[in-house]
């Protein structure tokens, strides 16, 4: 809170001084790019990215702009649709760098898009703050790429910790189900290691083919081992919903948890209210938090739509970037800016939790914004926050 308050005060003073000494419209512009899927599958994530950054920029501009050194900048957000296609993400980044002159880009959101632009980000020394889930997005050889929120590798252990404290201790038999692709293989290994390390027994581990919608064969194998808990891993949320429903139809009465991408509302759509009851989800934000509600109202006013919880991370991320820019004292020397993230973090999120900079042990480089993790349980067709996972 202090950092943000400080920068707001600074920019207010700066704005007053600037308006006193300089002509009113001679304000420099800080261009920030956004690349995310705005249409098609994943659109809710891309819109969350754009929304979060835009709201943060608007707030800063309304208070006079961002004061960096002794200049004040109007923050301009330029967003492009990656259409969840890597080639389009590359095009978008080219345009941001060469046409629009942006040196700071939020996104791409898709893993494929992010991996595709990593070279460009490195070569052009553009600071990229991505939302990709892939492990390979963060690499010691590329200090310009950051990740804006925690991913499964970061929150698997906290969630299992929560499980140990909040779910009956005698429920130790875990079955893990993942799609048969790269994210699924990573998750399969991660969950296997994490659960086993914490005293749980993995009784079944299945990979289902992505295009399948009838999970009966795979569920029959899993349920034969009588698990107490079924972890839905990186199954896309709507498919996870179908898995839940079909498992219940086959007579499964145990608990479900999803240590993977969050999408409780889609699970409810796919499973139906009754079957989805009690599913334990990872939440990037607490929807009952007053800070969240304020942002959601702001977003609704701006676009007319419901806000996706991930928006909070992008909003916070935008403020973190602006703080790093201020700390570095430059909008053009991206090397100085990227080194300043270590000063801008820890940062207090709009929800009150603390965001830390980390990742050295897991990824080899401290470029991960470790965001607070929340647990959400589906109750009566809605998601209820059940606390934080640490």
């Amino acid at each position: 809170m202090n950092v943000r308050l400080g920068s707001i005060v600074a920019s207010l003073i700066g704005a007053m001084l600037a308006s006193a000494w300089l002509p009113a419209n001679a304000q420099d512009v800080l261009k920030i790019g956004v690349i995310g899927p705005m249409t098609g599958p994943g659109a809710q994530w891309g819109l969350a990215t754009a929304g979060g950054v835009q709201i943060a920029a608007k707030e800063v501009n309304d208070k006079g702009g961002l004061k960096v050194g002794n200049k004040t900048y109007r923050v301009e957000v330029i967003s492009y649709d990656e259409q969840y296609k890597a080639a389009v993400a590359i095009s978008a980044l080219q345009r941001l760098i060469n046409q629009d002159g942006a040196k700071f880009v939020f996104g791409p959101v898709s893993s494929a898009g992010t991996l595709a632009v990593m070279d460009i980000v490195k070569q052009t020394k553009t600071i990229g703050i991505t939302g990709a889930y892939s492990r390979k997005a963060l690499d010691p050889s590329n200090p310009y790429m950051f990740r804006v929120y925690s991913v499964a590798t970061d929150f698997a252990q906290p969630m299992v910790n929560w499980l140990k404290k909040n779910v009956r201790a005698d429920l130790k038999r875990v079955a893990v189900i993942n799609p048969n692709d790269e994210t699924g293989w990573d998750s399969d290994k991660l969950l296997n290691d994490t659960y086993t390390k914490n005293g749980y027994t993995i009784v079944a581990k299945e990979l289902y083919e992505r295009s399948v919608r009838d999970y009966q064969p795979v569920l029959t194998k899993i349920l034969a081992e009588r698990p107490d808990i079924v972890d839905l891993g990186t199954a896309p949320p709507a498919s996870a919903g179908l898995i839940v429903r079909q498992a219940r139809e086959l007579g499964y009465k145990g608990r479900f948890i999803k240590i993977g991408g969050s999408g409780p509302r889609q699970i409810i759509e796919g499973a139906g209210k009754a079957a989805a009851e009690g599913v334990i989800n990872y939440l990037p934000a607490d929807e009952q938090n007053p800070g969240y509600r304020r942002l959601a109202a702001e977003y609704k006013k701006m676009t007319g739509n419901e806000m996706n919880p991930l928006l909070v991370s992008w909003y916070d991320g935008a403020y973190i970037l602006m703080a790093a820019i201020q700390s570095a004292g430059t909008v053009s020397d991206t090397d100085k800016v990227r080194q300043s993230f270590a000063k801008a973090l820890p940062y207090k999120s709009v929800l009150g939790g603390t965001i830390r900079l980390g990742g050295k042990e897991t990824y080899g480089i401290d470029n991960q914004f470790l965001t607070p993790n929340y647990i959400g349980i589906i109750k009566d067709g809605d998601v209820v926050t059940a606390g934080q996972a640490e």
Partner: protein
Amino acid sequence: MARRIVFAVLALAAVGWPFLVENRYLTHIAVLVTISMTLALSLNMMLRIGQLSVVHAAFMGLGAYTSALLSMRLGLPFLLAFPAAGLLVAAIAAALGPVFLRVKGVYFVLLTFALGEGIVLIFQEWVSLFGGNNGIYGIPKASLLGFAMSTPRAYYLFGLCLAGIAFLVAVRIFRSALGAVLDSLNENEDLSQSLGVNARSYRVCVFTVSGFFAGLGGSVYAHYTSFLSPEAFSFWTLVDLLVINVVGGIASPIGPVVGAILLVPLPELLRDAKQYQMLTYGLLLMTFVIFLPSGIVGGIRDLRRRRRT
């Protein structure tokens, strides 16, 4: 004579402009135009013999992955990987051609559809070779005899040459004796066959040549974007190529050239109305097919013909 001057001026402009206008982004778009143009021309060859082939996007993919893998895994220089990509696809087309081209019309569409979907499925599922849905990245940049192609401009000029060659081949095929044969087949196959024309061999020949260029186009794409994923070669990519041909005009190779120049930059201009892009494509296709089935180029030709009479 006037025609040649116009052509020379256009050619000079096409080659020279990126040296005058130093804009990486525009040049980047231009590279995509030349690659699409090459692919659209390869599809056009099939459309002109009356076969709607929907496998060409997958052919492009085959060329792309081949070139990428040859240069990454076997260390082959671009100068070898590039033609190898084209030849591999040509070989596949030549091998499947005799079977596939026994049929016409909707059956051919279904066949090429099945083949195309199968190829993309293999790209997605054979992860150890093709990298699955996450694809392959870090494909080395192309270099020609020591001259490394590292700027969009270099790729543009290369792509332009490739498109130019594809255009010339397309023109030549149909102007030659082969072309006369193909036209006669289109008009009255039974009669031509009774005159001893081996219809299928001619069609296989065109299929092979079109596959060759599709593969070459894929190779350029791979080394330019340094990244490949299966979704770039899906049926939707083929729809783009089809729209380019229908809007530009199928009857002449100039059609896809015009179509590519008009349509490839369009998504970049419509960046904010993305949701509506597919709708626009659908409506565009509908409008042209119903009201201007010969495309822009064909439409202009019809207009000129009517003026003369």
